[in-house]
């Protein structure tokens, strides 16, 4: 029998090791796996390479991981925010490495990893600082840049509902990076509002099929409730 249900966020992240590459879903207030990040913080893994759209906001979640010096490098598109003070401080002190990636390249490089694509050419970034040193090629008269996949050891994502096979459905814009990150990590862990019996989720509406997901954890409060309360 397949049962990807894990009893707690702590158990779900227990084997994340020092130096691991960890994708963390979420954009703004939506889709952040707060419980899994809290559990990772308590678990203590260090020297992490984190892939996320941003570099943490305020004091919780990813910002706390950065504050506690658990993150060696961050791969993201938009680190600078009004409340990214913990990243800003570490970056200015030279304590954290930044790989800045155009947001579409971030999504597509993650997608490419999940889809088994070796690399791809895109016009995004051509002629800019972010393409310096990269291979380029003119295709159909247009200049392109070669971009490589981003893979991870773990992906931490948030979804709305799951079943024990790991099928996931999301809620509104909380979907964001979840589906592509789920496909690009060796071990994808999803925190969800609710785990429902097998057969309950409408197969036409499943967004992330369970093949991409290793572990699911039901959390008492959803990210939505937490962010609304914050």
């Amino acid at each position, binding site marked *: 029998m397949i049962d990807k249900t894990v009893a707690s966020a702590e158990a779900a992240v227990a084997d994340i090791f020092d130096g691991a590459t960890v994708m963390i879903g979420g*954009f*703004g*207030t*939506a*889709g952040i796996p707060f419980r899994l990040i809290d559990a990772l913080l308590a678990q203590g893994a260090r020297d992490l390479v984190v892939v996320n*759209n941003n570099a943490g906001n305020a004091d919780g979640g990813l910002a706390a991981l950065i504050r506690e010096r658990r993150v060696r490098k961050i791969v993201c*598109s*938009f*680190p*600078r*925010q009004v409340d990214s003070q913990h*990243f*800003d401080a570490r*970056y*200015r002190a030279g304590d954290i490495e930044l790989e*800045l*990636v*155009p*947001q*579409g*390249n*971030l*999504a*597509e490089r*993650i*997608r490419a990893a999940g889809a088994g694509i070796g690399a791809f050419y*895109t*016009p*995004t*970034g*051509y*002629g*800019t*600082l*972010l393409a310096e040193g990269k291979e380029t090629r003119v295709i159909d008269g247009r*200049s392109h840049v070669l971009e490589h996949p981003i893979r991870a050891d773990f992906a931490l994502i948030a979804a709305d509902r799951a079943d024990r096979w790991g099928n996931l459905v*999301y*809620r*509104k*814009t*909380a*979907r*964001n*990076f*979840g*589906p*592509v990150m789920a496909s690009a990590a060796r071990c994808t862990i999803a925190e969800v509002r609710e785990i429902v019996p097998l057969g309950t989720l409408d197969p036409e509406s499943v*967004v992330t099929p369970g093949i991409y997901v290793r572990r699911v954890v039901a959390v008492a409060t959803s*990210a*939505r409730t937490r*962010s*609304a309360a914050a």
Partner: protein
Amino acid sequence: MRRLTREQMAARVARDIPDGAYVNLGIGLPTLVANHLPAGREIVLHSENGVLGMGPAPPPDQEDFDLINAGKQPVTLLPGGSYFHHADSFAMMRGGHLDICVLGAFQVSVAGDLANWHTGEPDAIPAVGGAMDLAIGAKNVFVMMEHQTKSGASKIVARCTYPVTGLACVTRIYTDLAVIDVAPGGLVVVDRVDGLAFDELTRLTGVPLRLPSAAATA
């Protein structure tokens, strides 16, 4: 001569967005365009975090923090709207599916190069988001910005001195003084504020401008 206010600039951009267009409005000044879309036109707004058919902000106390825009503010979904993941959303942007994007800018060059992501100052923390994807991916890239910096320098330049976001990507520039097309032969003034002579606009801009061959300046 009276410069356009930010709201007037937004209304001027909105006037040029046709019925049926799929449109992405960048963070900052371009966001104001949503308030001025002409009634009677069905215009579908895209938000890069995974929404088509984005509606206005919800009333207070009805915010849903799972439904936000690229600026991370709560929004609503119009009937017919849809949600999708980030790779799909950027495929729309990079794959040439959006009719128009409206972006803010530090500088635009006469060749249509855009600089809007990074000042390049040594202590600045760079952030790019989806700017480079929109710049190369939308069918029409509209830039909306003040014509001059606070110190009076033109933001329309021969060559960008800030790090570029994309090369030869801007279609049209909307400022508080004029509307200017980036055309193969150079910059063409299609509209300017009342009381601003063409020669004066050229002087303030500091790069060669021309009038449309038909000489009609709306």
